[in-house]
Each structure stands twice: as C-alpha cells, then as structure tokens.
C-alpha cells in the first residue's frame, strides 16, 4: 500500500505556506467514508448583547418588547436581499453576499422563567443548548450543546471531535452571576448535562494539542512502544474506573462515566492516529505565547480554528470571544468602561457609542475568520463554501437583558445554504432551530423523538 501523503509534504512541495484542506489523496483507503465535501460547523459567540441600533438590519428594533403568544404568527417569514450591512458589521462588507442576518431568533431559556436574575449565566448556557440551567451556586445541570451533539454523532470522522476555544478563562473564585455556578458564563459547549467541555484560551496550547501530537517525530518502533504502553495503562485505568463505579451510588456514578468517556476518546485517538492522515502544520504558524491585545488573541485563536478546519483535524469549532457578562475594558478601541458595565447603557449616548465600537471590533475579528476560510481552497471551491459559521450573542440588548431577536449572522454556503439575505423569522423562533438546521446540513441524524433543548425543527430559510 502506498504511504499516504502527509500534509506537510504537500505543503512543502507547494513551495509556499498554503493551507490544504481535506484531500482524498491523503487518506489511506477505507479510513472512513465521508461525503465529498463535509460541512464544517462553527459557532462564534460574543457576550453582553449589542448596540441594537447599529447592529440590527434596518436600525432600531421596530418592536422592542417581547411578543405575546397571541401575537406570534408562525407562518410569517420575510426574506430580503442583504443589500447593505448595518454600521457595526461594515468590516464584513467583503462577505456581504456570503452571510445572512437572521432576525427574531430567541433564547427563551435565557429568560428568568421564575429563576430571578442571572441573565448572563443563562444567556451563555441556553444559547447553544436551548435548556434552562439549574440555578444553584455549586452544582451545574444543563443539557448537551449543539456542537457537542454534532461531535458525538459525526466527530468520529476526524482526529478531534471538536475544538472549543475562548478568549477568557473561567472566573477563578468568588460569586458568579446571581447565584449560578460559574461554569455557565464561560462555557457554551456542554458534553452532557453536568459536563461543560474544556475550553482552551491559549492559542499556542490549542495549536500544540492539535498539531504537535504525542511522540511526533519519534522513531516508529519507539512510537509504537509508547502507544502500546499507553493502551495498557488505559486498560488498567478503565478497569479501575469500572470497579469503582460499581461500588458507588447512582448519583456519584456520572463522574466515573465522564472519566470513562474521556478514556474512550483518548483511546479512539490513539487508534485513529494510525489511520487518519498525519497532520502537518508549519511550525511558523504556531501562535505567539502571549498575545499582545484582545484582537491578536482572538485572531490567533481563530487562526488555530481555521488551521484545524483546513487540515481536517476537526469539523466542529466553538469560539467564545469573551465570557458572558465579561467586564473587560476595550482599550483597543478606546472604550474605557467595562463591557458589562456600559452594556447597561440606559440609552446614554457615550455608552451606546462605546458598545458600538466594541461590536464593530469583535465583528472585525470574525471577519478575520471569514477571510481565512474564504481564502482556503477546498475541493472545487473554498472552505467557507463548505462551512456554516454562526456569529451571535445570547443577549440582544444588554441594557434590558432581552433574549429575543438575538443578534445572529450565519455565513457560508455549507450544506447548500443560500446566504446574502436578511431573514425575519416568526417572533419567538427558538435559536435552537438554527442549530438544528446546522446539524441537519452537517449530516447529524436525530431520532424522531430527539431534539436540542427547546428546538422544534430545523430553521427554514438558511
């Protein structure tokens, strides 16, 4: 059998640093069967809502209050061409025809629904899960998120099931939002109801994990020894976990289940490392250890995301450009107040202007990702054409903590999406419907009785 080409070899022979995506030639025969152009799914989240007047298509909201059930007309869906981008999204102009603005999507479970304050915790928690988080300071209870559902169903095709990144670490101590455990505000991605997925904030570490695999460059017999030893350690540890689990009451077993799931994933990767194409990314692409400012940090993370998609290390990426409720100041664009602080703008003009600056700045970072995807060839076309990339927030206007008409962009033509439009969905359309549509287009099969949180059906009009 001819040795599969390593991407590195291809990169070198190309004589320049170009990114090469999924190529059949690099796959050993029968490694897996995948559609010719797999759909990549990307979610990018920004915290604290936006300055609606500068972000929403057509300016200020027409009807800022939450729609009553009696007013919701399910059959109304209006589409227009996206002829001009709102001011905060101007930097995305090169991609105007490749993205759509979706209006009226709602995160109902980000609302109090009797749980009192804590909108920031709930916004991040509910955005990608469609589930109301348990309000408790020391215990988390949510549901699986769309990206992790995809990771579990179709992630086996790649060495890494998914990639979860963010610019801010979780809070390290103290009380979080209004009596919620801290994990909600800093984690969109949930492997299960009690397990927020690890989120990597250091671009260089994310890079090393993806592209500087264990034992890379070792003589093959040594590497094989290492793998064999790793496997027998895994066997032993799994045995420990199973024996221990059998001794425990049901409510403690889920930690052991998490342990076992983690071990299975490590084992899968050892197995797959031999069959999946070797990943090669130039050392020069290794991001800086300590990014200088938020923009550099965000771009470095988004570059790692792009490289991961380009090399088919994963097809599912989630990026949090800030923890929900983050109060960092954006000195990068001369906004000195804290983001959360000024998001409670009280219609104060300078604060609104500050929020608009932050919105534009974050959108520009997103543009960097789109640029990267659009300039990466993928088969006959480019990577963006085979991707669905969501950009949005779980809060509409930070001042009032509204969770309807969430700021939402969807870029890319993956799975046959037709961007370049403004789509007004019926009021109170769950944003989980958008996630369901993405899962459907990426080939994730859900059983008829299965859904994602409060999602009803894949969103029409993608």
């Amino acid at each position: 059998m001819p040795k599969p080409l390593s991407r590195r070899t291809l990169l070198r022979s190309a004589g320049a640093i170009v990114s090469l995506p999924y190529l059949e030639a690099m796959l050993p025969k029968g490694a897996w069967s995948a559609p010719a152009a797999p759909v990549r799914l990307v979610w990018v989240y920004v915290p604290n809502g936006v300055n609606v007047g500068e972000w929403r298509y057509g300016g200020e909201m027409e009807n800022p209050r939450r729609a009553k059930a009696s007013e919701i007309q399910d059959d109304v869906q209006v589409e227009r061409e996206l002829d001009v981008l709102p001011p905060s999204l101007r930097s995305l102009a090169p991609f105007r025809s490749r993205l759509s603005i979706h209006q009226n999507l709602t995160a109902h479970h980000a609302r109090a629904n009797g749980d009192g304050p804590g909108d920031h915790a709930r916004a991040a928690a509910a955005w990608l899960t469609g589930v109301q988080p348990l309000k408790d300071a020391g215990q988390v209870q949510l549901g699986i998120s769309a990206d992790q559902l995809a990771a579990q169903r179709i992630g086996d095709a790649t060495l890494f099931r998914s990639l979860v990144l963010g610019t801010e670490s979780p809070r390290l101590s103290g009380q979080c939002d209004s009596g919620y455990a801290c994990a909600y505000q800093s984690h969109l991605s949930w492997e299960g109801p009690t397990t927020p997925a690890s989120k990597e904030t250091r671009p260089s570490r994310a890079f090393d994990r993806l592209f500087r695999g264990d034992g890379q460059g070792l003589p093959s017999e040594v590497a094989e020894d290492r793998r064999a030893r790793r496997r027998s350690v895994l066997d032993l540890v799994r045995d420990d976990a199973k024996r221990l689990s059998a001794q425990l009451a049901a409510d403690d077993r889920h930690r052991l289940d998490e342990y076992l799931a983690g071990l299975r994933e490590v084992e899968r990767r050892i197995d797959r490392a031999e069959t999946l194409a070797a990943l090669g990314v130039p050392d020069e692409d290794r991001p800086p250890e300590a990014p200088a400012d938020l923009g550099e940090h965000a771009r470095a993370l988004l570059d790692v995301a792009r490289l991961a998609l380009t090399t088919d290390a994963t097809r599912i990426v989630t990026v949090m450009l800030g923890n929900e409720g983050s109060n960092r100041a954006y000195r990068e664009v001369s906004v000195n107040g804290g983001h959360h602080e000024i998001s409670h703008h009280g219609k104060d003009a300078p604060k609104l202007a500050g929020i608009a600056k932050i919105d534009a700045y974050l959108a520009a970072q997103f543009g960097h990702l789109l640029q990267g995807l659009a300039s990466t060839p993928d088969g006959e076309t480019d990577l963006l054409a085979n991707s669905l990339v969501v950009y949005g927030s779980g809060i509409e206007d930070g001042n009032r903590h509204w969770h309807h008409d969430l700021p939402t962009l969807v870029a890319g033509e993956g799975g046959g999406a037709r961007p370049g439009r403004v789509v007004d969905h019926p009021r109170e359309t769950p944003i989980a419907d958008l996630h369901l549509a993405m899962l459907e287009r990426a080939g994730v099969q859900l059983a008829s009785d299965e859904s994602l949180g409060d999602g009803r059906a894949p969103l029409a009009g993608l």
Partner: protein
Amino acid sequence: MLRPLLGLTLLTLPVLSQGSDARADSDDFARDVAPVFAEHCAECHGGDDPAAGYDLGGVATPEGLDAFDWDLVREVVLAGEMPPLGSSRPDAKTKARFVDWIDARVPALSDGALDPGPAPLRRLNGREITRALHDVLGVELDAAKILGPDPVGHGFDTAAGALALPAERVEHMLSLADLAATMVFPHDDPRLPHVQHFGPEAFESGGHRGDAAVLSTTSSATFGLWAPRTGRYALTVQLSASRAGDELAKARLKVDARRVGEEREIEAEPGATQTERWEFEMEGGARTLAVRFTNDHYDPQNANPKLRDRNLFVYGATLEGPLDAAQESDVHLALRTRAAERGDASARAQLELLGRRLWRRPLQSVELDRLLALTQDADPEALRMQVGAVALLASPHFHLRVEAVRVEDVRDAGTTRLGGFELATRLALFLWSSVPDEALLDAAADGRLDDDAGLAAQVERMLTDPRARILAESFGLAWLGVPALDQHRPDPDAFPGWNFNVGRSSVEETRRVLEELLFEDRPLTDLVAADWTWVDSRLARLYGLKVVPRGQWQRVSLTDTPRRGVLGHASLLTVTSNPARTSIPRRGKWVLEALLGTPPPDPPPGADSLDDSSAESGLSLRQRLELHRADPDCRVCHVALDPIGFGMEAFDGIGRARSGAEAEGLDTTGELPDGRTFAGPVQLAEILANEPRLPRQIVERMLVFALGRGIERSDRPAIDAILDELDPERPTFGQALRAVCASPLLTHARGRTLAGQDQDR
C-alpha cells in the same frame, strides 16, 4: 445562603414531628408568628399574586412552610431585609420573639440525630494535584496549566458539583501522568537518537536561499522536535550575516517562546559560517525552537552595496541531548531505601509505598498485581517504576476523593465516622491542598484518627506544618474573591497609579494578612477591623504610608488612616470596581455576600439598573441611587447595598484613599436597613466587626471549602456546636479551624465507608 439540592430527600421529608408538643407549638405560633405574617408580610406576600411566590398570609399553621422556607424567612427578617424599610416593620421585641420561635422549632426538626450531610464524590483540583506531585514525587509541574482551570462553585474550586471531568481534561490527565512519571523515574530509551540534525529545509522562516534559511526582517527561523525527556540539551547552529548599520547581526534562541541563553553577535559573512552553541534545560515532549534575528537593519542609500542590508542566514542546527545521563531521582532512591528497610526492595514493594501516598490508602494486593502485570516487560527498574507511576497517577483512585458508598435512600444509610484513610484525605485536602503525608497515613493505619484526641493531635501537627500556609490562598483569597483580579484591568487613564506590579502586591498584602489571621490566632473581628496590614513599597505609596524599602514587606499600623481590615485592601477595592470607576452597589453586595453570607434578595423580574431617565439629569450618583431606591422594587436590595458601598467610597477604584478635589463633597455616611448609622469606613468596619453573622459566615465558608458542598439546613446544629466551641470573649481563626476539623461534619458521613478500603491495615 441555603439553597436546596436537587433530589435530596431529607429536605423534603415532613418537617414537623407529630407529638405531644404539637399543641404548645401551635399556641406559640398563634401568638408569636401568625400576627407578624398578617400585619407585616401579607400585604405583599399574600393574595392572588404573592410577591416572590411566598404566600405568607396563607400560612395558618407551623406546617404551612417547609423547613427550608422557615429558614429563609428567618434569615431575611433577622437581617432586616424584610419587611423592607419604609413598610410596616415589627418592633424589636416582636421580631425577637418571631425569630426565637423559628430557632426553637428548627433544631427540633432534625429530631436530634446527627446528620453529617451529603459527602459528594469529587475530583481533585489543579492546585491539589500540583501540590501532591510536589509532595510525593518532588516534581514541579503546574497541573492547572496542563489540565485547564477548575470550575468554581460556591465561590471555591473544591465544589464537588461543579468539578466536572470533560473528555479533554481526561486526555490532559494522562499526559500529566506521563510527564510527571518520566521526570521522577527518568529512563533514556537507547533507541532514541542522542543527536538530531536539522538542515535548512527544517526551518520555517521568511525564505530560503540555497543552503540557508534567510531572515531578512526581525523574525525567527523555527523548527519542531521531540525532546525524549526533561533534561539538559545543547544546540549548535551554523550562522552567517550580511551587514548594514553600525552593529553586527544578533541572534538569540527561544524554546517555545522562552528565551534561553545569551544573544550572540554574528561576525561571519555569507560564504563563511560561524557556529554558536547554546546549552539549556528543556522539558520533554514536542518543543518548538526558534533562532531569532533581533536587529534587522536596512540602509539602501549606503554607498557600499555590501553595507545596505543586514540579514541573518541559518544553515543548520544540531541538537544533542539529553546531555546529563538519566539520574536516579532522590524520590526513587528514598523509595528503594525505605522498601529495603522493610525487607523487600523490589519494584513491587516500591510501588506499594508510592501507591499508598498517591491513592491515600494501602493498595490491595490484587491492585498491586495488576500494576505489576503492566510493568513486567519493562526493563530496567526505572522504566518499571515509570510505567507503574503513570498508572497510579492516571487512575480515578488518585484523581477522585471517594469517601463513602451511598445507598440509594439516604434515610436508610445511617451515619458512620469516616475511615481513618478517608478522614486523612479530607484533612489533607482541606488544610494542605495536598495528599496526606506518611505520618498522617500511619496515624490512619494505627487507628489514631478514630478518636477525637488522636485527630486533634494530627490537626495540630498539620496546622503548624508549613504546608498549611496554603490556606491563606486556597481558602482565604478565594473566599474573598481576590483571584478574579487576574481578569480585571483598571483603566490606566482613570487610575494611573495602578499597574500589574501594584496589582500583584495588593494580592500579596491580602494573602499575608490572611496568613496572619489564620496562623497567628487573630480574632475573627480582625478580618474587617484590623488596624494593621502588610505593605511593600508600592502599597505604601498607594496608601500614602511611610516609605517602605523596595522589595521588603512590613507590618504597619493603620490607626491614623481610614483603612480597616480587608475592606481597606487595594485588592478588594479594585476587584469590586469597574475598570474606570468604583461601583457602590457592587461593593455593598460583596460585603453582604462574602463577609456576612446574606446576599441581597433577587431584584424582581424586569427590574432595571439605574433608571434611564436619570442618566442625563445631572444628578449626583448618590442622588441617582436614592431615586433608584425610591422604587420599591429596587429599594429592597439597594437599601442594604448602597450604604455599605458609600462607606467604602472613601477609596477609589484601585484602593487609594480619595483626597483633595476628589474628596470634596464625598459623603461616606450611611444608614443600614436596621437603622444603625455610621460615618466613614472606620465606623462601618466597627459595625461589621460586631455583626453576629460574621463568625457564622467564617465557619460556614470554611466548611463549604472543606466539604466541597453548600451548607444544608441539616448542618445547622453542627455549625452551632462549632460556634459554641469558640471563646466568646475572643473568638479566633485558629479556634474556628480546629473546631471545624473536629466537627462531625468533617469526621462523619452518611452511609457506609468504602467497602474493603481498610482491609489491608
């Protein structure tokens, strides 16, 4: 604050016993409680749409509320939060009788039986793993950096319900096990090349020319490699440089962006080469090395074409190493020596000793057999130990604190004193953020932890051990929320006096003060009222105190300043502020939450932050907050939050005392919900120091940290007992720590102890 735990049946049991005192209870209820509900509560908490869903007007008998809600009612009435100021409030006597009735009822509810509460299984956090690796294996690794940060619950990184095990963490746990084991049991695989060559094609750089990588801007030529293990390495690089300007090209070496060794000047011009050698320590694993060109120069107008462009040429590199032979570590030597003293120096005997430390209990022989089976084909002994240590470190027995096997119904579980080894682990994680040492394990094995005197002796030993000092950080700083300062950047225009070093010093001040409070047996009141603190030169300047020599820490008196206790610490005053200004409600909220354990009630749905209309009205902040408080929806919280915040307004957003123009018109007076008034932060500190909630809160926070769970209603009798242990004249932190360690909440658990755990004693 008490919050219900899902699925905990004890809380949902019928709370009132039926018995002979039932009649007396209901007579008292009719006299002391029902009228209060009717007169002072029912107006809001009654009718068809009772506020917050509490229909107190409809509570006609003691059974009308469950135990949890009685507790909540007691807390808010006692704190003066309810009924809110401005509404009809019970007089002091009525209030006292009301609270007394609940107090008399509440202990009766748990029918006298000791209930140590749930003992949730929890995983160790990064700090505990880091310190365990240090204490047991002598390796310095920051586990949190490798495993990722720990989720926080109840304000601490020890909350069992929050410490999840996502798949990626398990992956990193295995890597960490590998890394630590190869560091303590190094073994050089003879099949690995001792010398690795890298030609110009191995370098990623701006360009290549012929046989060299060319750096024509200030940039790096990087290459990746695999370092077999942590050790000393030498890299020789062949270089040359073209010239321009008045200095030679300079090159330096970086390992994963860390600069190593000296910068070198490159004299050799293209055509010749110069060999530079760097020797450095490098961690094992995948590394990225970079030869960096640091001083690009371009002078296109220079008359001499050979002096126009300074570029660096890299022809090749050779890595040699590890240079040091794999040396047996002190830990390995000590293990073998101890094993030999016991008559068996085999790898099995050594792994038995090591396993006992890492798993905090004797290994069963079947467990040892399985470890040995894993290592039998490994040779030599260092490799055998390495493989065994990986398995020990990757095991759930290392990473999880498993205390008791719970049966499905807690009511049937009974209560037992924890086994010696389980208790030893609890104590070590609590007091040391580490695993037990040999002495503690010996005490557990000898049954010395099974009685109160033996336990007290070990606790005493542990508290005087330097390892206990971590409590100032693990418990103290986390309790106060100081680590969040890492994510807070004061605005340099608003607060030019702040920089990273000031921030770091401010954390160190609080850590030192907490260390003194905890270990010099200071009174609990010193937390908020201490008229002393620790400062270095930066803080002395920030606080306007007498100059302190650079690099020194001094304990200073604050009697002549408005600063008292932690409320005057720059760390807290900064972390409770916005980047560019202070936040009055947030500071008030911090005091209520962190110091008194009485977080303000939730604002009603739809309650807004400062009202829109007031923003442009030109009112002062105090006036706007007063306007905000005029709204009854907002008042209930802000009447408690704002006065405290105003008292702390004496200090700006980085903890500097306001002075000059800033202090003009500054009004730091306030009135608390219960009517007490104060003028300025010193008086506020005195009031807080005398708050009866303070000692309870300190004890409760210690328990939450130690147990890894929230406070339950069933904990109250045991907490009362701990408080009774404190010297009423001068309660101290030392007393509180010892009483917590001796409490049945620490020493006991629901359910049986882990089956088979003690059989190897």
